[in-house]
Each structure stands twice: as C-alpha cells, then as structure tokens.
C-alpha cells in the first residue's frame, strides 16, 4: 500500500478521527489548527481555526454536521463541519483533554484537566440540533469529578446512558451519564496511564492503550479484561479494525527521550495484533517519531496514524490484507 502523507500541521498530532462514512478525516494538533481532509485522496477540504492552544481532542457527530474540539486554551468549541464556522464556545477553568459524542448526537462530553486548585471534571452537555445549531445550552446537564485519579480519556457507551473512562492511574470505570455515579470500576485495568480508548464497531467491547506498554480489550458491561496485548513500548493509541480480527496499536518512547536513540530502536511503528490470539501479526513503519494517535476507517478499509513528527499517514489496505488469513482455518469466520 502507498500511504498518503498529510502535511497540514506544524506540530505533533494529538488526535485524528474519521467521520461515520469514513470519507472525511479530521486531524488535530498542538499547532492550534484543526484540518479536515478527504480520506480517499488526501485533499484538504478546510481548516477550523479559532483555538488559541494545543487542540487535544476531536469528535465528529454521526451526521458529519457538527464537530467538537477541546483545547488547551480552556475551551470546547462546536464547529459547522461544512463551512468551518465556530458555532459555540464553552469556557472552563482548565484545559479540555477529551471530547466525545453519544451515539445519537444528543449528548457531548468533555474532560477538563486537573490543575491549579481545579479538580478534573467530566461534563455532559445536551446539544440541540435546531436551526443553525448556534443556540446551545451554557450549563452542562451533568458535572462530576471522579474521585482519586483523574480521567484522561472517555467515551459514551452504546445508548449513551453510561460513560466509559480511562484514568491516569490505569483505572477504567463506568459512570452514569445522568447522575455521575460510578457504576463499575476496574482499578487495575492497567498499571500506567490510559492513553486512548476506542469502542468496537458494535460497542460491546472497547480497547484501551496505556503507558504500561499494553493494550487491553474490555467488556463494556462489566469492564472485565478480555484480551491483553503486551508490547515493548509505551502505547499512545489503539483501535479495533472492523472486518478483520485485528487491533492496531501505536506508540513509542516518550517524546522527550526520542533523541537518545535511533528511529529503529524507538519502535515508531504501528503494529497489528490479532485480536483473538493476542499475537503480533504485522507492522507498518513510516513515522520518525512516536505515534500519538491512530484511527481506523469505519468500514475497515483504511487506517490513519498521526505522529509526534507532525505527519498524518493514511493507509488504504491492499487486496492482500483482506485476503490474508494468517491463522488459516483457526481464523474466525468473517
């Protein structure tokens, strides 16, 4: 496969997301700008500018109309995807580290950083889709601060009643989206900070990546660890491939210690792990810095990775990828 190299950012990537059909790719970086690209040919459709700090997180709704972004300028913004216009800005006392939509696009959540006397908080907003969408509520319907370790990543569980969170201590928890009550928790899901959390296509399980060099698949209902993928490098991102039974993980040594070793031993490769057999089946090289974020095409035809090096690489899978069955008859049927 020939990766498409997107050079729209001047600083390291923080999060990339596909829209629901997979034709648009949104990329956020520390350079304050959000880009949107046509994933098929790498053409840039536009930029969303307005943030005054590193953009930490992005979320695209299921209709590809509204885009949420959270940034280090202590704001969360709602954008019109088609025009690039900012529809609404919410301000917080601290930086916004993660944003997410619920399945039905009615709820949006954001995690704010814990800093200078402010507790890290998770807020849930009810987003209205009336008219030009500029009239949004200022106050969240739910606001709560997880006790103990701060939350780093979060996503809505299917149906949007619960929020799955990953924490700095390695804990994974389930909160009620309405009351903020902790329903379930797995304190020792990971032994390092959870860096990414992405749901499977049907939402019944999700994958987390962690600084403890492992990625794990958890059951959405009871948070039980189903599978563990142990690598030799701290992981920054993990996602589940639809269509094929793989998990794609990416990471690399800390950005600050990168200059001490060669690209090779930095292990800046995206790795494919078999979801069932928990074995590594393939690698894709290309980045010359740690991989910060990985997103997979919703139909499983492609994946994109964003690195500390400021590049986004979009890989459309070859036919051989779809044909290959590394485990032969042991392979689960497609």
């Amino acid at each position, binding site marked *: 496969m020939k*990766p498409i*190299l997107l050079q729209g950012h001047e600083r390291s990537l923080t999060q990339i997301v596909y829209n629901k*059909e997979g034709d648009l790719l949104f990329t956020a970086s520390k350079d304050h700008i959000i880009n949107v690209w046509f994933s098929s040919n790498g053409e840039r459709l536009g930029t969303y500018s307005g943030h005054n700090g590193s953009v930490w997180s992005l979320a695209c709704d299921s209709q590809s109309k509204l885009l949420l972004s959270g940034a280090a300028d202590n704001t969360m913004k709602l954008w019109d995807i088609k025009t690039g216009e900012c529809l609404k800005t919410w301000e917080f006392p601290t930086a916004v580290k993660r944003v997410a939509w619920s399945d039905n696009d009615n709820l949006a959540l954001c995690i704010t950083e814990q800093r200078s006397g402010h507790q890290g908080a998770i807020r849930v907003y009810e987003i209205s889709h009336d008219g030009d969408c500029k009239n949004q509520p200022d106050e969240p319907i739910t606001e709560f601060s997880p006790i103990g370790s701060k939350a780093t990543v979060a996503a809505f569980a299917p149906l949007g009643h619960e929020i799955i969170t990953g924490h700095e201590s390695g804990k994974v928890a389930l909160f009620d989206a309405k009351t903020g009550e902790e329903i379930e928790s797995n304190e020792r899901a990971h032994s390092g900070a959870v860096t990414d959390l992405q749901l499977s296509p049907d939402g019944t399980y999700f994958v987390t990546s962690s600084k403890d060099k492992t990625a794990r698949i958890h059951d959405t209902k009871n948070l039980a660890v189903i599978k563990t993928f142990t690598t030799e490098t701290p992981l920054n991102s993990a996602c589940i491939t639809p269509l094929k039974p793989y998990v794609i993980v990416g990471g690399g040594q800390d950005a600050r210690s990168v200059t001490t070793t060669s690209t090779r031993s930095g292990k800046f490769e995206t790795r494919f792990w078999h979801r069932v057999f928990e074995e590594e089946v393939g*690698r894709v090289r290309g980045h010359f810095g740690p991989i910060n974020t990985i997103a997979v095409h919703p139909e499983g035809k492609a994946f994109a990775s964003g690195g500390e090096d400021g590049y986004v690489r979009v890989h459309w899978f070859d036919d051989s990828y779809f044909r290959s069955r590394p485990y032969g008859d042991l392979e689960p049927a497609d």
Partner: protein
Amino acid sequence: MSDLTTAAAADPKSWADEDDDDALPKPTETVGPDGIITIVEWKLDEDDRKVKVTRRVRRRLQTSQVSHTVAERKHWNKFGAEKGKSAGPDRATTTVSENINLKLVAGGQKAEPAEDEAAKAKATVGTKRIMCRFCKGDHYTSKCPLKDTLEGAGMGDMMGGDMAPADEGAGGGGMGSKYVPPSMRAGARGAGESMFRREDMPTVRVTSLSTEADEDDVRNLFSRFGPISRVNVVRDRDTNESKGFAFVAFESKKHAELAAEKMNGHGYDNLILSVQVLEPRPPRD
C-alpha cells in the same frame, strides 16, 4: 530614422521582449497512443530560472459507489486556509509516500529487525567473505580490474587505510558492532542510574582502620561473618592513601549485624576498630 526604430524592435534584448519571455508557457497535456499522458509544465526555480517539468502519467478511472451524503460532501466548497483553492490534492500538503508492504504473519513478529541486520553483518565478517575494497566485487582488491582507474582517482588512499575492528568497544557482549547505550543493554534497569546511587545492601562502616589495610585485608577480616558483596576503603583522591575508614556491604542484614557486634572494639594492626551498621538512606529521587 525609420531604420533605427526597426532595428531596436528587432533586437531580442529589448526590455519589452524580455518581459514577454518571463511569462511561462501554458502547461500542455498530450495523450500518447499507449494511453500515457505527458504533462509539460513550466515553473520558475529559486534563481528565477525557467524549469520544464515533464510528467508521464497514466490515468485510470476508478469508480466507487458511495452514499449520497458522501457524494454531496465531495462538492463542498473549501474553507479556512484552503478557501478558494481548486479541487484536487494540493502537493504542498498531500504527497504519496513510497510503497509499504504489510505482511500479516501468524506467530508474532521477529523480535527486532535491527538485530537481524547486525547478526547478518557479523556473520559475513565471521566467514571472511572476500570483497574488493574498490568496486565491492567478489574478488581480492589487488585483482580488481578497476584498480588502476579508481586508485588514480584517489579512492585508493581513501579506502586503503586499515579499518579498525568494529566489534571493539561494543561491550554489550554479542550485540554485534552496533553501539548500544547502557540503559538499553540486556539486564539494564530501564533508564540510566545515577553513578552515586548506593546499593541497598546492608552495610557496616568501619572506622579507626589502619591506613595500611586495603580492600583485600578488610575482606579477609569480615568474610567470616557471611558473604560480602562489596568492600570499599575510602582513599584520598590525590595521594590514594587510605583515610582510615571503609564500608563493607553484606548480602544479608543478619550478617552485617553480626559483623558489627563482633568486630566493634576488635584490635587490628595496633588500632581498635569501631564498626557500626549503617541505617539505609531514604531513596533519593
């Protein structure tokens, strides 16, 4: 008079003509008989020179069925930094990278391709494969057919020097010729350690020690109480003379305590030893 004006107009160095020259020719596209399209473009390089860029491409129409919403989005107007730009990828932001093979193989990946290369390099050194220093051919350097030409071009001096054995100084033991930082070597405990870090061994301090006593003497003196992991006689940095005290690290706390109890007040070389068990220092961060 009229002659003069015509002469000026005919002069190709006239400023009016020069201005015309600067205008770049329009890009042309010609389709060859084999379906290969030749695109000729003109552009100015950094020094304002005209550069002709010829690209030969083959266009293949790929049709894919997409939903209506996706098809509609294809016709959206560009906005933000891309506002007003024409359709199609901009080569300033979008490039196609070289081909990558993703081969999916069962049974986990090989530990590290870098190590494979190092091993391969080492294997070739071990079997002493014959390689010409000039042309890298499969024969002795002295038998090289290009010897005279290359040597004349100064390659001989450059390549002729004795190569230092690359394996020396690697120190990692079986890691090949590649330098491996200590923190990455087998058995290393992650990131580098401070050189002043004390081992967390139960240690006794021996004072009023004779300045004549060296490490071996102290080791002999204390080894009867149990296995010793380290003996350190403190010396003056310049004169290398013992300062009269030493540290003895035991493998177990029990032995250290026994040694302190038995040896405290023991006479050694006309001096009465004073021995105390050291309290473990709180870990430094």
